[in-house]
Structure formats: structure tokens, C-alpha cells
């Protein structure tokens, strides 16, 4: 069965969002002149995302031909909170605020981190986790996003175009209940 709203090889919905450090970013414009791009749904309070700070910081340098943006969609995420994390964690990648989780909903994304790899025309190539959440030292470590990028660059079919969801929920009733602490 194929899902009829977000298909591999077909364009992902475009979006324009405010960057938390100022200015507006349009996805289609970001992809202009590039081979492709990566959009990662991300949150400043997601402990899984913290694991990828170094990787995301180095992404632009490692892949100059690819656009990269993180989209902060989690319910309750504020630009101020994100800016605080940027300062504390020395984050250098562009982070866009998605108020009301609108883009996350349009992109069928329920948790962070979740990565989308696309070509310059936003055609979906890979959807899922960055890796299997093991450390590179672990013999069972599996990278998902990087091989997909390499395969796309070398014109090969993406061997594993989809991996399943895991991470912190973008919207959970527990975020809107009275705080436990």
C-alpha cells in the first residue's frame, strides 16, 4: 500500500518559517543551486536531539551541496527557549520555529529527531531516523542518513529509504498537563 499524501520520489510540501535567530527561510529557496537538502524535525528539550549537536553543526561543512534546516515543532517550544539552547550548546545550524506544529503535521511527523532527505526539487528520497541511536563505537551502530546521502550523490537507489519513528513526541498530552516539578 502506498500513502497518498507523502510519496517517495514526489515533492514534499514547501514551507516558509521564521528562523529563531531572525529572518524568514523558505525551503524551496534554500534548495536552489544545491543538489538536495535535509530537513530535521528537532526540539531544544529532546534528549535524542542533543546527541546530534556535533553532527548537525558540522553538516554544512561536510555537505556543502546540501541545504540543512532544523524545524522546532514541539508543542510548547518557544523561540526564546531555542535561543537559550543555541547559546548553551553552541548550535550553529539554522533552526526554524514551527508554531502550532503546522509543518510537522503537514509532513506527518510525530517525534524528534526525524530527518527527510530530498533532491533540489524537494522530491522525497529518505525519511526517518539519523541512525539507530547507537554510538559509532558500538559494533551494532548503523547510520541511516549518511548512506542515503552518499547513495543519492552517486546516483544509486537509496537502499533503505525509510526507517521507523522513535524519539520525543512533538505533541503529547503530558506537555499540557500541570508540570510534575
Amino acid at each position: 500500500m502506498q500513502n497518498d499524501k507523502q510519496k517517495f520520489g514526489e515533492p514534499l510540501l514547501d514551507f516558509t518559517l521564521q528562523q529563531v535567530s531572525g529572518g524568514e527561510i523558505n525551503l524551496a529557496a534554500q534548495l536552489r543551486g544545491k543538489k538536495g537538502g535535509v530537513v530535521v524535525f528537532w526540539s531544544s528539550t529532546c534528549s535524542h536531539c542533543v546527541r546530534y549537536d556535533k553532527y548537525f553543526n558540522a553538516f554544512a561543512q561536510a555537505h556543502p551541496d546540501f541545504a540543512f534546516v532544523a524545524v522546532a515543532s514541539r508543542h510548547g517550544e518557544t523561540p526564546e527557549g531555542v535561543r537559550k539552547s543555541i547559546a548553551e550548546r553552541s548550535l550553529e545550524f539554522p533552526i526554524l520555529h514551527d508554531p502550532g506544529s503546522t509543518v510537522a503535521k503537514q509532513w506527518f511527523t510525530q517525534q524528534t529527531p526525524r530527518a527527510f532527505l530530498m533532491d533540489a526539487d524537494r522530491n522525497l528520497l529518505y525519511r526517518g531516523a539519523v541512525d539507530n541511536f547507537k554510538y559509532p563505537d558500538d559494533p551494532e551502530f548503523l547510520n541511516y542518513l549518511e548512506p542515503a546521502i552518499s547513495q543519492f550523490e552517486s546516483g544509486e537507489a537509496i537502499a533503505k529509504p525509510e526507517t521507523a519513528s522513535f524519539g520525543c513526541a512533538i505533541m503529547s498530552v503530558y506537555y499540557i498537563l500541570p508540570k510534575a516539578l
Partner: protein
Amino acid sequence: MNTVDSIFKLPALVLEMGLTTAHNALGEAQRVVEKVAGQSRQHLTAPPLNGPSDLDTAVSEFMNHIARIARYTPKDAAHLPAASKEILDAAKKSFGFLDFTSPAAITLPVQFTLSFATLMTQSALRGLVTYDIMGSTRIQRLMTDFYDMFTELQVFVGLEYKEIIERCKDRLKEAPDDHAIRLELGETYVKCGLYDEAVEVLFQVPRDDSHYALARHEAAVALYRSGRFERAAQADVDALNSDPSDERARCMLWLSVQKLGGYPSFVPESHRMEMKVGYEKPTVEFEDIAAKIGLDKTSAGRGVAIFDYDNDGFLDIVIASAHGGCSLYHNNGDGTYTDVSINSGLDTCVNGFAITVGDFNNDGYPDLYITRLGFYVGEGQLFRNNGDGTFTDVTKNAGVKVWGPAFTASWVDYDGDGYLDLFIANNLGGLFERKTPNRLFHNNGDGTFTEVTDEAGLKTIWPTIGGAWGDYNNDGRPDLFLSNGLGRSQLYENNGDGTFTDVSERAGVTALGFGSPAFFWDYDNDGWMDIGQFVWSDHEDVIHTMKTGHGPADGNPMRVYRNNRDGTFTQVNEELGLTGCWGTMSGNAGDFNNDGYLDVVLGNGSPKMDRMEPMILLENDGKKFHNITFAAGLPFTGKSHGVNLADLFGDGRMSILVAAGGAYPGDLLTTGVYYPKRLAGNYLNVRLVGVKSNRSAIGAKVALTAGGRTQYRELSGGSNFGCLPLEQHFGLADFESIDSIEIRWPNGLEQRFENLPLNSTVEFTEGQEGWKDVYAEAKKSAKKRSKKTTAQPA
């Protein structure tokens, strides 16, 4: 049992009865005062977004707040003013709903006293029971574990761990030598999966500090989980040098050295252990095919349900996730699966827990009920299968909207009206929590349900983990066994008029324990349903089992209650060789080696990050169960909460599916699918379609006679984290033919069939002659679909 425990045993029973009586009396007094004040009790149906709206919830929540404040407040006088302010804030949050100007407020002092008293009697009862189960030697560390888990799960699920990290860091700035807080910070990092940060902090605890051993052990956990096994081993050697009695460090050390190919020379003999279980000779071996078939989901160990959602004949899979949404996998019919979660509707169901499958509206497409967060409170969801690959949340319209600590749920047609009813088993949602009633919803036959719990007489004081339905007395009506998470198990006999009678004492099934999911099965093929009850054991008992091959003498192994065919049961697990103690959270029975006897797989674990244990496979040879786990090629899974099994490919081989991982964000492991390397015997798979009975035929009984033996099955509507396929698998060893199959449908119709083909999957429809060969037709249809697709213009 030591002398202190023996002396305490009899008074404990008296005290238990006293507390239960006191609780019931206080509860009655509460009702009387509420009546005087013109109040009525309502179950919570929606999340309390503005805090509690009734006194009982408020009192519980306030006590839980105090426990959390105590946990996270440094133990010195300087922090008392801040803690007092937090307590005041907590009081405002918990009791803010009260209207002191109302005339009814006059009853508040009495109501508050009664509410507090009922909470305390329930808490005391649970404390007493915990002591009774654990004895004096093991209770302290277990209570610490419970305190930790029940005070912080709310914090983690609400993503408030950032605040804990900041609190700890602030404290360390003002008191750099507070190593208790340093340990707390390191442990929090481990729970978040931030292993580098954890190791850095935990290694700062000096050798002469009393927290050193625990800090080194936690560092070992971080190192192990980040794949640095030699350093992990070294850290646990340090921990054991400091505290040679720490069995958890010894076990983690053993686990690390398995990755190194054995104990390195730097590990002293005294710190070593051997794995003494899991090596009995197997009749079947398994290989992990998860990645090959597309099911290697990184999971947090939640429910796995196996069902054919699109009626194409092939078994599909849905896996819940503690944090993200559910994943739906479509069986392509060629030995692979495709992730079709996006846009299915199930992907929106985050924080999922247990899944149960049943066609509640009899439209031919199986629907799902998913509980959320059974160790906290959550909102279950009923998903109607639309038949086009999508599911719609119909919880509200169906009238089954509830808010509570639902652990498992099950479908059952308890009144035989042809529509599936829904039972929800509620656990405990916090450290100080009163029992949330279990719920029985009667299906009105028009897509809606009506709650009938009170009328049915299913009230219990114990927190419930599993509710299993089965006809134990062969009167044609499903009865209910409650496996209570902390207390005594219970058996309710279905009176046939919508009510139930508690027959636990008479039946002899009231043993105390940390009950996990349970199930009805006929393990000895005598035509009378026996009861299998999984039991959760603490970490030390599990390690004892690993080291010695059996649980401690006063341990709590899995229970098997043999049906004596007279309304009573006898506990026989010991004589069946089931003496190992495991932290079983789920499990299932199935005939893996096709020898005609039901085997058992146990999914084990606990939220604690250092608690890693294997799932366990127990092979039944008709007389005894043998632990063949490792000899059969199964790995040391770590945590295996959502374990399930099915003949995924219609080839007679029962695969074991394990959604691995745990409750904390960092506790992520990968789903395993373990497939038998060979077909160990003949088989027959049976599917049933109800017509007058409920469409899923839940409650139907199937008796298959072959090789001079009859095997019995009863279709279950789920009693576990995950849900077995409704397809019934019969192992037929080297039998050359099947004599007969007799089916007793839930509505009472009895049918008999002969000349069935060996080694196939057949479907019977209620009241119809003959049967359908499921896979022959499925493959024909798939071929047609593929031709049609090929014929279409590109």
C-alpha cells in the same frame, strides 16, 4: 525465609485483612459524606489539564508532589525554605479547584481526613504486601527502585528532565562535594541517553565517597550502552572492588565481557559469574531476520500486535512506541514488510503501551484499542479500521474515553450478544495513588459502548496489570482472571446475567505477588483451561537465577495454575520445571517446535537503565518446561517488554517478535524477529470468522485431534502488551493426518470437520460447510493485483 519474615507472616495476613476492612469502611464513610454534601463520583474521562477536580485525586497528587520535592531537594537546612515554598505551590496546584465559599465546604475537613485516610490505608496495604512478597533482606533496594521510578516517570514523560539537570548543576555549583546529587545528575544523563556527559560526571565521584561504587556502576551502564565495553567492564570492576556485594554491577560486568569474548585478565575471579540458564538442548534454533524483512524498528519496548488489517490474508504488524507514534507494517506477501505508518492514523498515537485487536463493529476489518502509559496515567484510544489502510480515532463517539493508568486491555463478548465488549485493566499511576477501577464497557451494537463495571461486580482494591478472559469451567461463558501488579490475583466467574462472582478463594488462585499479564491456555491438553500468570521479580532474584539456574527458594517464578476440573486450581509451576525468576512484563504461549505442546516465551525487564535481562524461551516437552533460550540462538535482549509470536509467512514456523527497550528516553533498543531455522514438525493454522458470533470469533474453542491426541485452544481477545494473531497454530509433530477439528463458536454452535490438509492455513466461517485455504487464495489475489498494476500505463 528468615526468622524475622516467618514471625511476621501471620500478623501480616491479619494486618492485610484489617487494612482492607478499614479501607472499605473509610470508603463507605466517604460516600456517605459525599451524599450529604450533594456530590457524586465520576470517573475521569479526559486529561485533567487544569489539575485535579476532586478531592481524592488532589490528595494523591499532593502527596506525589511532596515525594518528588523530597527526592530533588538537597538534604540540608539551607534548602528548607525553598522546599517549603515548593510544597505550598504544590498545595495550590492540587487543591486550587476547591471552593471554600460554598456551603458544601463545611464537610471539607471530614472529607479531607477520610480521603487522606483511604489513601494511606491503600498505601500501607501495598507496602505490607511488598514486604510480604520480598522479605526483609531484599525490600530496601526494591523500595528505592520503586521510589525512583514512581517519582520520576512523570518528569521524563513531560520532558522535564532538563529542569532536573539544571537543578543538579545549580546544586553542584554551590556544593561541589554533594556526590549524591552528582550521582543523580549522572543517572539522569544515562536515562536521557547522554552517555558522554554521564561518564564525565560520574567519574568525578571520588573513591572515598560512599556513592563511589554506584557512580562507577552507572558509568559502566553509560559505557556499555555506548558500545565501549572494555571501559564499561573496568568501571564495574571499580564498583565491585568498592562494594563486592553489588550483584547488579557483577551482572553488568558479565554483560560487558560477553562483547569482549570473555573475562579480560584485569577482572578478578571474585567478580566473575557464569550464566547457568538457557542452555538446555533445543529442538529448534532461531535466526534474527528483522533487518532482512524490514522490521528493525528502534523501539522503546511497547506492544506488538499481529493481525491482518487489510484482509489480504497476510499477517501485518503494529508496534507501539513509548515516545513516538505507532508503526504499522504491511506484509507484502513475499517475506518482507513495508512501513505504512504515515497517513494510517496510527502514527498519531504517541506514548502507546498495550495493543489489542478485535472487530468491535463486525464489519470484517479488525479494530484496535491502544492503552497509553500504564505506569502513569494516560488516555486509551479506540481506532476503527476503515478498511482502506487507515484508522480513525473513535474513542469519544464510542463512549470509551477514559483517563487512567491503563496497562492492558482485552476484547471479550462476555454476554454472548455477538458484539465484542472492552475490558481495561488499570494499574497504579504514581507512588501515592489509589486504585483506579478497572473498566468493563458493554458494546451496544451500534458503535457505542456503555460502562457496566459496577453492575458487573468487578471491583478490586489491587492495581491490575493483566485481565485474561477464558472459560475455565466449560459453561460456555468467558470468565475473568485478574493478574494484579501488587497484591493477590483474582478469578471472577461469569454468572451469565451480566454479573460476576469473585471465586478466587474457592479456586485457590490468590497467591501474593507482582503479577504481570496472564493468559488462559490448556498446556496439558485435557480440555480444561489452565492459567498461566507471569510474575515480575526484582533484579537480585533475576541475577540469582542467571547464576544458579533457578530462582531463590522464596522467589516468585512464573505461575501455572492447573485446572482441577472442579472449579479449583493447583499451582504446578515447580513440578513443571518453572523455577526461574524473571522480571516478566509480558509473554505468550505458542508451539514453536510443532510438537503439539504449548511452549512459552517471556519478555523481561524493568524501567531501570542498568536492568538488562534476556527474554526467555521455555520449551514444553509434554511433561516439563526447558529453558533453551541461548542454546536456541536467541540473544541477551536486554529488555523485551512487547514480546509476541506468530507464523508470519504461513510456512508453519513461529517467529518471535520482540519490541525491545524501556520507559526512559535513552532506553532504546531494536526490534528483533527470530525465525526458526527449520520446520520442526507438521502444523495446521486455523482462522475463524464469526457470523452470529462476534466476527473475530473471540471466545471460540477449537479442538484438533491428530496422532491420538487432542489439542485445545480458546481464541483470546488479548491480555498482554501486544496481541497474538487470532489465527490458532497447532503443531502436529510427525502425525500423518488430522482426524478432526471441532469448533464451538461463542454463540454455542458446534461444528466438526474432517479430512483437513496438513501444513496449511485454513479459515472456517461460522455455520458454513468446508473451509478456505487462506494462503492459496491470498497468493491468487496478490497475483491478480500485480497483473492489474503491471497492465496499467506507466
